[in-house]
C-alpha cells in the first residue's frame, strides 16, 4: 500500500500580463521540460498525466485534444480535469494512492491574454435561465458578495485596501510575479469604482503562465530527490451553483474543503500548525473571507489579524508571501498551481529574497471564481 505522495519536481514559465512571443503549447512545454529536469525524470518514465483546462478559456470545443504533445504524454494515460489545478493535484494523488501509478505529472496554464472578452465569457458560466438574462458581470456579483461580507464582519474597504497593498508589495520580491507595486491604501481607495465597494485595484489583474508538477509515491520520491514535499492534506468541495440560494457572507466551500484537508492531515489547531498560507485573493476581500473559512482566525477577525501585521511577510502566519493573485496575476485554472509553486519553493528553502525562515507546513487554497462556490485546499510539508 502506498502511504504518502510527494511533489518531486516542479517547473514554471513565471507569470506575465501578455505572452505574444509564445503559444500556450510553448508555455506548457517550457514548464514541463523544467519540471522533468527538476525531478530528474523523462516523460517516458512517468505513468500518468493530468492537465487542467476549461474549453471556453482555451477557445477549443475539446481542449483535451491538444494536451499530450507538449507534455510528452503521447500514447500514455492522460486526462483533463476541467477544474482548478488543486483538483487535478487531488486526482493525481488518488491515482498514486491506488497503487496503479508510481509517478504522475499535473499541468495547468493560463493564456488568458488570448481571450478578447473575458468578462463576457465568464458570463456564460452563469445559469442560462435565471441569471444570464440579467447580464450581471462577474465583478458585479463579487461586489454584492463583498458588501455582504463587510456588513457581517464589520470589515471596511480600508482593510481590503490593506490586503492589496500587502500583496502587491510582497510581489515585488517574487521574480515570477507580474504586478508587484509599492502603493498605499489611498491609491486603492481612489482607484476607479468597478462595482462598489469593489474598486479597480481590489481586483486581481490577469496573467499568462504555466506550471507542471511531478508527483511520486513514497519510495520513488525518496529515490528521486532529497527534499520531497509531501502532500499531507487535500480537500475540495462544491457549494450550490445557484446564486440565490447561497450564503453570501461566508465561504462555505472553503470551510468544508479545509475541514476535509485538516482531517486528512491530522491538524486540529490550524493557526498553530500552519506556518504560512497562499490563499485565493482574486478580489481583495476574498483573502479575509477565506482566512476565516479556513479557521486561521475566528469569524470576523481576519481584518484585525491583518491590521496586527500577523499576515505580513514577517508575521506569525504570512499570507500570500508570493504576492497572491493581486500581485502575481489571476491565472484562472492555474490559480492553484502558482500557490503550490510558492509552497514548494518555501518548503524547499528556495524562495530567495522572500524566503520565510524555518517553515515546515504550508497551506494553499483556491476558489474557482464567480459564479461558482467551488474551492479546494492542499496542505504540504517538508517533513
Amino acid at each position: 500500500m502506498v502511504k504518502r505522495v510527494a511533489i518531486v519536481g516542479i517547473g514554471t514559465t513565471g507569470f506575465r500580463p501578455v505572452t505574444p512571443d509564445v503559444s500556450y503549447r510553448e508555455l506548457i512545454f517550457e514548464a514541463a521540460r523544467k519540471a522533468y529536469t527538476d525531478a530528474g525524470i523523462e516523460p517516458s518514465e512517468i505513468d500518468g498525466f493530468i492537465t487542467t483546462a476549461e474549453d471556453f478559456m482555451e477557445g477549443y470545443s475539446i481542449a483535451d485534444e491538444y494536451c499530450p504533445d507538449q507534455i510528452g504524454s503521447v500514447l500514455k494515460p492522460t486526462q483533463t480535469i476541467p477544474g482548478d489545478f488543486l483538483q487535478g493535484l487531488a486526482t493525481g494523488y488518488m491515482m498514486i494512492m491506488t497503487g496503479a501509478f508510481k509517478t504522475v505529472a499535473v499541468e495547468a496554464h493560463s493564456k488568458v491574454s488570448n481571450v478578447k472578452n473575458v468578462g463576457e465569457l465568464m458570463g456564460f458560466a452563469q445559469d442560462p435561465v435565471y441569471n444570464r438574462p440579467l447580464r450581471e458581470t462577474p465583478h458585479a456579483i463579487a461586489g454584492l458578495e463583498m458588501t455582504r461580507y463587510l456588513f457581517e464582519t464589520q470589515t471596511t474597504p480600508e482593510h481590503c485596501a490593506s490586503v492589496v497593498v500587502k500583496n502587491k508589495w510582497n510581489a515585488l520580491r517574487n521574480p515570477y510575479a507580474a504586478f508587484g507595486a509599492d502603493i498605499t491604501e489611498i491609491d486603492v481607495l481612489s482607484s476607479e469604482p468597478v462595482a462598489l465597494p469593489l474598486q479597480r485595484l481590489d481586483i486581481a489583474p490577469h496573467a499568462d503562465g504555466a506550471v507542471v508538477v511531478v508527483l511520486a509515491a513514497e519510495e520513488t520520491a525518496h529515490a528521486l530527490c532529497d527534499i520531497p514535499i509531501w502532500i499531507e492534506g487535500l480537500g475540495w468541495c462544491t457549494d450550490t451553483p445557484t446564486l440565490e440560494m447561497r450564503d453570501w457572507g461566508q465561504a462555505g466551500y472553503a470551510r468544508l474543503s479545509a475541514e476535509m484537508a485538516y482531517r486528512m492531515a491530522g491538524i486540529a489547531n490550524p493557526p498553530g500548525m500552519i506556518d504560512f498560507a497562499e490563499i485565493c485573493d482574486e478580489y481583495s476581500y476574498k483573502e479575509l473571507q477565506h482566512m476565516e473559512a479556513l479557521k486561521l482566525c475566528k469569524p470576523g477577525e481576519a481584518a484585525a489579524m491583518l491590521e496586527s501585521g500577523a499576515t505580513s511577510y514577517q508575521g506569525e502566519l504570512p499570507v500570500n508571501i508570493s504576492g497572491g493573485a493581486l500581485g502575481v496575476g489571476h491565472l484562472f485554472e492555474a490559480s492553484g498551481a502558482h500557490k503550490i509553486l510558492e509552497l514548494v519553493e518555501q518548503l524547499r528553502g528556495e524562495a530567495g529574497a522572500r524566503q520565510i525562515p524555518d517553515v515546515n507546513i504550508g497551506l494553499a487554497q483556491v476558489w474557482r471564481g464567480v459564479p461558482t462556490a467551488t474551492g479546494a485546499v492542499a496542505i504540504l510539508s517538508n517533513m
Partner: protein
Amino acid sequence: MGMRKVAIVGAGITKFVRRAQETGKELSWQASKMALDSCELTLDDVDMVTMGTAPDAFDGVHMKGEYLADGAGGIGKPYMRHFVGGGTGVFSPIHGWFHVASGMADICLVVAEEKMSSCHPHPQGAFLTIFDHTTEQPLMPTLIWIFALEMNRYMETYGISKADIARVSVKNKHNAMDHPAAQIPQEITVEDVLNSETLCWPVNRLDISPASDGAAAIVLASERVARRITDKPVWIDGIGFSIDTAYWATRDLAYPRYVETAARMAYDMAGIKEPHKEIHIAEPYDPFDYKELHHMEGLQLCKRGEAARLTADGVTARDGNMPICPSGGALGVGNPIAATGLMKIIEIFLQLRGEAGKRQVPGDPRCGLAQAWGDLMQMGTVVVMRK
C-alpha cells in the same frame, strides 16, 4: 497487486431523446436518483461525486461541471469533473475508481450527462472549433469530414466494403429494439443504410449515431461496503486510458493504436492474456458503424481487418459467440456523448448480473468490457468488469 477492489453496485439511466424538455441539471438528477434508488442508498451515504460531461459548447455553459453540480448531487461534497472528449463516459468510472481504490472514498456517485440539443442549429457546430486554429480551421473541416477520411482509409487498407460496415448499423439498431432508453431502435436492412443520404462519402446518414440528450449514473463502492449493499457486485478489474498525438494527420488512421495501448493497460491490470477468449461480451464505442469494427481490432478482440467478417458471420450478434453492443450501442440507443459511455458500462453491469431482460445474452457471461474513444480520433478509454 494489493489494490482496493471497487465494485459497481447501482445504476440509473434516463431515456435518450433528441430534444429533452429537461435541463441538463434535471437529466443529471434523474439518473443520479435512479442509480441511488437501485441500490437503496441516499445522497447522505455518498462520500464523493464525479461528473463526466463532454464539450461545454453543447450547452453553451462555461464551466459546465459547476453548473451541473446540484443536479448531480455534488452540493456540499467533494465533487469533480473529468473530460476526455468522446471518451469521457467510459473514463467516468475510471475517475470514480481513483476515488474509491485510493481509499479517499467508500462510496462514489459517478454521473455522466450530455445535452446536445441546446446547440443551435445543430450540435455539429460545436465540433467546428475542435480543430487546430492555425493549420486546420482555415480548411473548414467538419467532424464527419475527418471520419469519412478515417472510414475510407480503413476500408481501403483491409478491402472492406460499405455493405460490410452497414451490417453493424443494422445489428445495433435491431438490438436497441429491446432497450427501454433507446432513441432510434429500428429494423432496417443493409440496403437502407447504403441508400440513405450521403453526408460525406463514404459516410451515409444511417452510418452515424444521432445527436441526443440524456444522462446516466452508477454507484461505486469499496469491497467491504459493496458486499453490504448487494449480493451481486460487479467488479472493476481493469482500467486503461491512452491519448495519441493531436497531430492526427501524421497518424495511420487505419488502426486505433491508442485503443490498443488503453486496452493493454486494462488487460494487464485484470490479468487478461487472451482477450478474444477471456472477454465474453463487449461494448465498444460505435458513434459511426465502422468504429465498432475499428475498435474491436484495437481491443485485440480479433485480428486487424477481421472484424467485418465476424459481424457478417453473426459472431457479434446478441446470440453470437462474442456479443458486441448488445445494448444497441450509440447507433441504436443514441449518443449523448458522455452518457453513452456510461450507458455501455451499465449494459455490461446488467448483463453480468443477468438483469438485462430481453437483451440478456445467452451463456452466463462472466467478464465484459466497455470502451469509448474521443478527442481528435486519439483518446481510448477501457474498463474491464467481472462478476
